[in-house]
Structure formats: C-alpha cells, structure tokens
C-alpha cells in the first residue's frame, strides 16, 4: 500500500472518529452519561493520535522524496535540506490545513486532559465543539484539499519537483507560520470553553480560569508570530520596513486585538462579576476572527505576498463556516442572555473597570477598522466597481492615533483602583509619571531642534522651520512622551510594590530587595507579569516611533563610487559571483564609513534559485546598533559594468522593536506560569493566583 493510499485512509478514519466522538459527547452531555462522556474523552485522544499519524505520514513522504504525491512534488525536491523538507509540511495550502488539524487535535487533547475533572460539567460540550471544528477541517482535507492526492499519471509527466518557495527558505519563515497557527488554533479552546459554559448555564468562575490562560497562550503566540513575520519581511523582502499592513499579516492582527481586549475585560468579570456577555462575545469574536484569518490566507480573496493563491471553492466553504459560527454562537449567547447579566454596576469613571472598558472599545474598534480596511478592496470588487488598493498611509492615518491612545491607557490604567479612585490619590499617583512624560516631551523637542540645526549646517533654524519639523514628527514626539509617561508609571508601580513587599512582618527585619522582588513576582505574578508585558509594548512603541526619522535613498552605484546616506558614506567595493547546489548568488561588497572611518563591511546579495530563476530573492545586509540600522538591499545589477541599483535605509531605533518583543514574551511567560494552588484559596493564595 502506498503512502498516498494509507494517508487518505487515515483521513477517512479520522473523519469517522470525529463524527463518532462528537456524537458520543453530544448524547453524553444530553443524557449526563459518564460512560458516553468517558468514551468521547478517549475519542479526543484517538483523534489527536490519528492526526499525528497522518502528519507523520506526509513528513515521511517528504523525507523519502515520494513524488508520486502531488503535494510533495509541488513543495519539495530531493536536493532540499532536511530541515526545509520537514517544514515544507506546512509550506503549502494542503499541508497547512493538515497542520491546522494536528495542532487543533493536539490542543483539544491537552485541554480535555487538563480539565476533564476540574470542569466535569462542561467537558462534554467542550469536546463536541472542538471536535466539530476539527471535523470541518478534516472534511476540507478529504473533499477539497487532500495532501495525499497522488498523480493519476506518471509523476514524471508533471516535470521536475518544484521545491519550497525560495522566499520561504528562511529561518524566520520556518517559525513564523507555526507560531501564528499556534495562536489561531489555540483560540478554539477558549471559544469551546466559553460556549460550553454558556450552553451548560455555568457562566461563573469555572470557565474563566481555563479560558484566561489559553487566551494568554494564544495571544503570546500571535504576538510572536506577528513580530517574526515583520522580521522576515524586514530581512527577506528588502523594502526596508517590517510592517506594511499586508492583508495576510493584518489577519493575524484582528484576533490579537480582540484577545488583548478580552485579557483585560476578563479581570473585570473576575473582580466584579461584570461584563459576562461582553466577555463571551469577545471569545466568540476572537475565534471567529482567527477563522477569518485562515480564510483570508487560503481563499485568495485578498491579494498578498503571503496568500496561498485563489481558490473560490475554499472561499465559499469558509464563508459558510464563518456564518455558521457567527450565527450559531451568538444565537446561543442570546438564548442565555438573561443568565449572563452582570452582578454589579460601574460605580465611577475614575476606576480601573472604566479604564478597561475604554481599552476594550478601543481595541475592538481597531480590530474592526483593520478588518474593514483589509476587506474593502474585495467588497469593492464584488460590487462590480473594480479592485482598489488601500495604502499604508490610510491605515497609519487612523491606527497611529489609536495606538497612541492605547499607549496612554497603558500608562493610566495601573493608577486606577478597582471600583473608584479618589481625585486626591490620583493626583498623587500621576504626579511623577506626568512629570516624566512632560520632561520627555520637552527633551525630544529640544533634540529635534538641535537635529534641525545640525542639518542646516549649524545655522540657527527659523521659528517656522522648527514648528514645521515638530509638526512633521508630531506623532513621534507624542509617542516618545507617552513612552516616558508609561515607563514612569510601570517603574512607580514596581517601586511602590517593592516598598510594600519590603515592609517587615511584626517582629521581623525588613526584607531584602531581592527577597521582596521574588515575593512580589511570586505572589502577584499576573499583575507584575502584566506590567512587564506593558513595558515590552512600550519599548516596541519607542522603536516604532523611530521610523519617523528614517532616511531612504535609491541609487545606481558603480564599483569604486561612494554615496552619502545620512551621516554615513557607502562605498561600492565590487561584486562577487558564487554558486552552490541550489542557487546562483551575486554578492555586493559595500563599506560603511562614518567620518572617513570604516564602520562595517556589508554584503547584500541577489540569489537565483535553479527551480525558480524568474523569482530572484533579495538578501539584505544590516549594520545594527541600538541607535539605528544601516540597511542595504540590492534591487538590480548590471553584470557587465557592476553597476548596482541599491536601496539604502537608516532605520533609527528599529532594534528596540525586537528588544521590546523579547521583554513582552518574558512578561507573557511570567503570566502564563501562574498556577492556582487550591480550589478554594484563602486571600493570600487567591491573590497569588490572580494578582
């Protein structure tokens, strides 16, 4: 039996297993039968193992160069390194759907194993919801996109194997899609728990604990995947930037916004019993948007370098699935509407609840704006008015102020107490952060003035020139100021928290700073882990704001010539042609000079893969420092004269975006690590768990 046949049979068995498990769980939930529910739990494990078997088979086909399978033929070739052969599994549409099934079934098994006793009343509903989602994707694999589909005729007739797209043969691109998939797919778990809680009528504490941590897990991987995508674009595409509001990258951003909103609003439900309907709605919307993201990437309804290509059949199927999820989920929500009413009301606008509500509206508005803008060209085309392009400037026009508002809230929120804050205490709280924010603003305005003076060769700029420079960079100035404000807020929270933690218990000496820090993080991990995440995001904003001061030049430069780039000089030292088993490479030698001194030699390149010679790739070269990147990218070249078309950039502060990401991920790890100690904690335990 061939791998293709065995793989297809496995998918059929998987489909049957999904149907059986969903049926057992539904009937078990209806009859409250522990036996049927127990069987469905085992069914979930079997589904995960079957998905693992199917995935192992396709990976085996890649490793064994089984080109009788169409998918293997299209995305691999025998000369590809082992690493890329394995990752080619999710490099194409069919395999990526199987990868979806593998992740979803794996997460389902983990979620069920971890919660089957803790949430015994919900677990049957959780199972059938998760398995039905699985069933949809397995159905797609069997009826529309079978990765095990063999060639009907001899494979040789299809020509040579095509190999993995060269653009995808990059370390970041290997990690980026799985990371985004992990984020997308894991959102199914909070959705299943949320819907199960609503169906079972148990919308109290039970589902919050599981849902919060899973959502944080999804959020972390979505964040990581989005930043890795940016890093890949920055290093591989050669246009000097990392984010251009590409529709497929945007698709990862929609659920990120709503998951961020949920992670804040769930705290209001935990503390005050408020916003239950809102929280369930956010869980539904986040999952729905994750499917929208999958739909956009795979249906071809949007145009993107990341999309898999047009597939009208898939577009229709996904469209129907999206409608079913939307109407089904909100239908259940309305059915339980009365049960989900709030237990408390907002007492004051000067409260943390209110700050979180504003935060939620802001994030939801951002998600809807990006979704609408991403889909608008498609709607425009459907309306028969031709396809339009939404430019980066359109997104930036609205998203920059919205992002700054979110940054402002990041600085304001921690000062607010639950229920209400008195104006006196707020004055006390805001004194230092506001001062730092204002001092930062004045500082960067002075720096801008000095920069202008330097650009004018030491001549004093006129008032109009200074005003124009400030107005040109008004958002960047505001961002730096808000970064100062927010970092001061976070620092103040740490300093004051440490001061409280250091105070001695009666009859004991004060705790050391190290002891107090450990105590603070151990006992209030969520609160202080959250502050670390906020710090990471603020540092990222600092890096993003630097883009306003970027310099870009496009030049034709011959060997021996030197061109100016800001305060650097770039000298062309020649070209070098090499070749390996996979590609031909032309590498440029460029010296980066500052004040006549050599800073670094950069070697950007153009690569022509033998499989796809019509798609040469750009290999950029960077001189990296904390202050800025000098970024060179070869766009074109004349091999007879050596004349090279070069795009050169100075990207100030860009590396702070990656540093901020690392800080943010560290904060997420602290928060995810939170564990409940007991079922019914005393105050100390409870707060250790919930910060």
């Amino acid at each position: 039996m061939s791998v293709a046949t065995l793989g297809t049979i496995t998918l059929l068995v998987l489909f049957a297993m999904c149907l059986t498990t969903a049926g057992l769980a539904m009937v078990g939930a209806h009859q409250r039968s522990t036996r049927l529910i127990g069987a469905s739990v085992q069914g979930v494990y079997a589904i995960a193992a079957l998905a693992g078997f199917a995935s192992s088979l396709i990976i085996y086909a890649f490793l064994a160069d089984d080109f009788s399978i169409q998918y293997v033929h299209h995305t691999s070739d025998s000369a590809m390194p082992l690493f890329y052969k394995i990752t080619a599994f999710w490099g194409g549409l069919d395999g990526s759907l199987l990868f979806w099934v593998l992740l979803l079934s794996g997460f389902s098994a983990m979620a069920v194993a971890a919660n089957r006793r803790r949430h015994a009343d919900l677990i049957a509903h959780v199972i059938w919801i998760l398995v039905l989602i699985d069933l949809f994707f397995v159905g797609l694999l069997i009826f529309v996109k079978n990765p095990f589909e063999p060639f009907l005729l001899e494979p040789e007739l299809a020509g040579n194997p095509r190999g993995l797209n060269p653009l995808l043969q990059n370390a970041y691109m290997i990690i980026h899609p799985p990371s985004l998939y992990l984020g997308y797919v894991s959102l199914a778990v909070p959705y299943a728990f949320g819907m199960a809680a609503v169906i079972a009528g148990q919308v109290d504490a039970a589902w919050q604990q599981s849902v919060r941590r899973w959502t944080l897990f999804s959020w972390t991987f979505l964040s990581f995947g989005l930043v890795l995508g940016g890093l890949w674009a920055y290093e591989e595409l050669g246009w000097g930037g990392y984010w251009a509001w590409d529709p497929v990258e945007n698709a990862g951003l929609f659920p990120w916004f709503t998951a961020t909103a949920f992670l804040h609003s769930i705290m209001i439900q935990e503390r005050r019993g408020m916003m239950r309907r809102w929280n369930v709605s956010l869980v539904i919307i986040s999952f729905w948007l994750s499917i929208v993201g999958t739909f956009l990437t795979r249906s071809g309804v949007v145009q993107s370098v990341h999309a898999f290509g047009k597939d009208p059949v898939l577009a229709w199927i996904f469209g129907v699935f999206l409608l079913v999820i939307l109407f089904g989920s909100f239908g259940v929500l309305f059915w339980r509407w009365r049960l989900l009413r709030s237990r408390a009301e907002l007492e004051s606008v000067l409260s943390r609840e209110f700050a979180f509500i504003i935060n939620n509206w802001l994030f939801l508005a951002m998600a809807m704006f990006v979704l609408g803008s991403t889909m608008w060209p498609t709607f425009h085309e459907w309306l028969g008015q031709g396809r339009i392009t939404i430019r980066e400037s359109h997104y930036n026009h609205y998203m920059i102020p919205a992002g700054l508002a979110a940054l402002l809230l990041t600085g304001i929120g921690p000062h607010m107490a639950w229920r209400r804050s008195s104006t006196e205490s707020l004055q006390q709280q805001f004194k230092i952060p506001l001062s730092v924010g204002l001092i930062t603003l004045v500082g960067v305005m002075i720096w801008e003035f000095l920069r202008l003076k330097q650009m004018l060769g030491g001549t004093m700029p006129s008032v109009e020139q200074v005003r124009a420079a400030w107005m040109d960079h008004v958002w960047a100035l505001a961002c730096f100021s808000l970064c100062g404000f927010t970092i001061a807020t976070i620092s103040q929270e740490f300093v004051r928290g440490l001061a409280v933690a250091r105070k001695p218990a009666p009859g004991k000496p004060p705790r050391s700073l190290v002891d107090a820090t450990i105590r603070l993080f151990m006992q209030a991990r969520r609160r202080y882990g959250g502050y670390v995440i906020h710090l990471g995001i603020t540092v990222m904003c600092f890096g993003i704001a630097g883009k306003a001061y970027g310099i870009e030049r496009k030049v034709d430069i011959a060997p021996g010539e030197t061109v100016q780039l800001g305060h650097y000089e770039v000298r062309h030292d020649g070209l070098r042609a090499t070749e390996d088993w996979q590609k031909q490479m032309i590498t440029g030698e460029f010296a980066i000079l500052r004040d006549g001194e050599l800073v670094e030699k950069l070697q950007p390149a153009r690569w022509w893969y033998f499989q796809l010679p019509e798609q040469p790739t750009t290999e950029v070269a960077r001189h990296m420092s904390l202050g800025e990147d000098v970024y060179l990218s070869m766009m074109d070249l004349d091999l007879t004269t050596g004349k090279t078309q070069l795009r050169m950039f100075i990207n100030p502060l860009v590396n702070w975006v990656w540093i901020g990401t690392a800080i943010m991920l560290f904060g997420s790890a602290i928060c995810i690590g939170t564990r409940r100690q007991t079922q019914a904690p005393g105050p100390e335990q409870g707060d250790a768990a919930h910060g």
Partner: protein
Amino acid sequence: MADPTESPGSPWLFLGFTLAIAATVLVVLRLVVGVALDAPTLGLAVACIALIGALRGMWGVVFALTRPTVETIVAESEAGLAIGSRAGLREEKQRVLRAIKELEFDHAMGKLSAEDFKQVGAGYRLRAIEVMRALEEDLGELHPLLREHLEGLGVVAELVGAAEPAPVAEPEPSSAEAVP
C-alpha cells in the same frame, strides 16, 4: 470510585513504553538486518508510534463504552448538582477575598485614600461574611445519606474546606501582608 473517563492505563506510561519498544526495534533492525537509520526510517518510526497511539485511543473508546455502568452515577450527579449550586457562592467568596486583598495592596501603595479604603473595604467584608455564612448553611442542608456517600468519595472534605471561613483581613491592614 473508578472514573469512567479514565483510559486503560497511564498514557505517559504507554508513551514511554511505546518509545522504548520503537527504539529497541530500530536498534535490532540496525544490528541484525543492517537497516540505515536515516531520516525516512526515523520518520516511519514516528509514524508507527503515532499509529499505535491512535489504535490505543480507539481501543480506549471501546473500553469506555463497554465498562459496566457505574453505580454511583446518580449520587455523583446529585453531588454535582450540589456543587453546581454552590459554585456561584464559592466564586463570590473568592472574588470578595481577592478584592479585599487587592484593596489593601492598593491602599498600601497609596492608590486609595483612607476614607475610600474604609468605606469600600467595609462593604467587601460585610459581603464576605454573608457569603461564608451562606456557604456554611448550604453545606448543613445536605441530606445525611448523601453527605455520608460524599464523604466516601472524599468530596465532603473539599466542600467543607471551601466553606470554612477563610481568615478575613483585619480592618486595619498589615502592609507587610498586603502583597496580592
């Protein structure tokens, strides 16, 4: 009591056992037949392990379906209902206790005025006492036979633990203990 959702044997033990068997088979094939342990062979071995896992999962479904009905399902459901009716109170208790602790921490950090702290805190403490009393009364209302049965299952200890009044913070907070 046997949990019908339990699988036949520990999954971790099973995984370890399967891995050990797979490793042994590969070593034997290498030594006896001279099979090359290259990437495709290892890939095939992983596929075989996954297949065994899948077969075990499917056997688990059959195993769970063919087990005799657990006699205590009815009692378990009653206990579940009892626990379900208490879930709201327990959630409320946890929320109130957390809120008190957070309030103390915020006060110690200077986010709340003394007046607000006193007023808001008094409301929370009153609510905490009400909830704990309700939990105690709720437990007292259990039918003696059901209580005895639940004791046998070890559920009562958990319920009692949940209902026991946790130490509510003193009216005047000890700042050293105010870290949430």
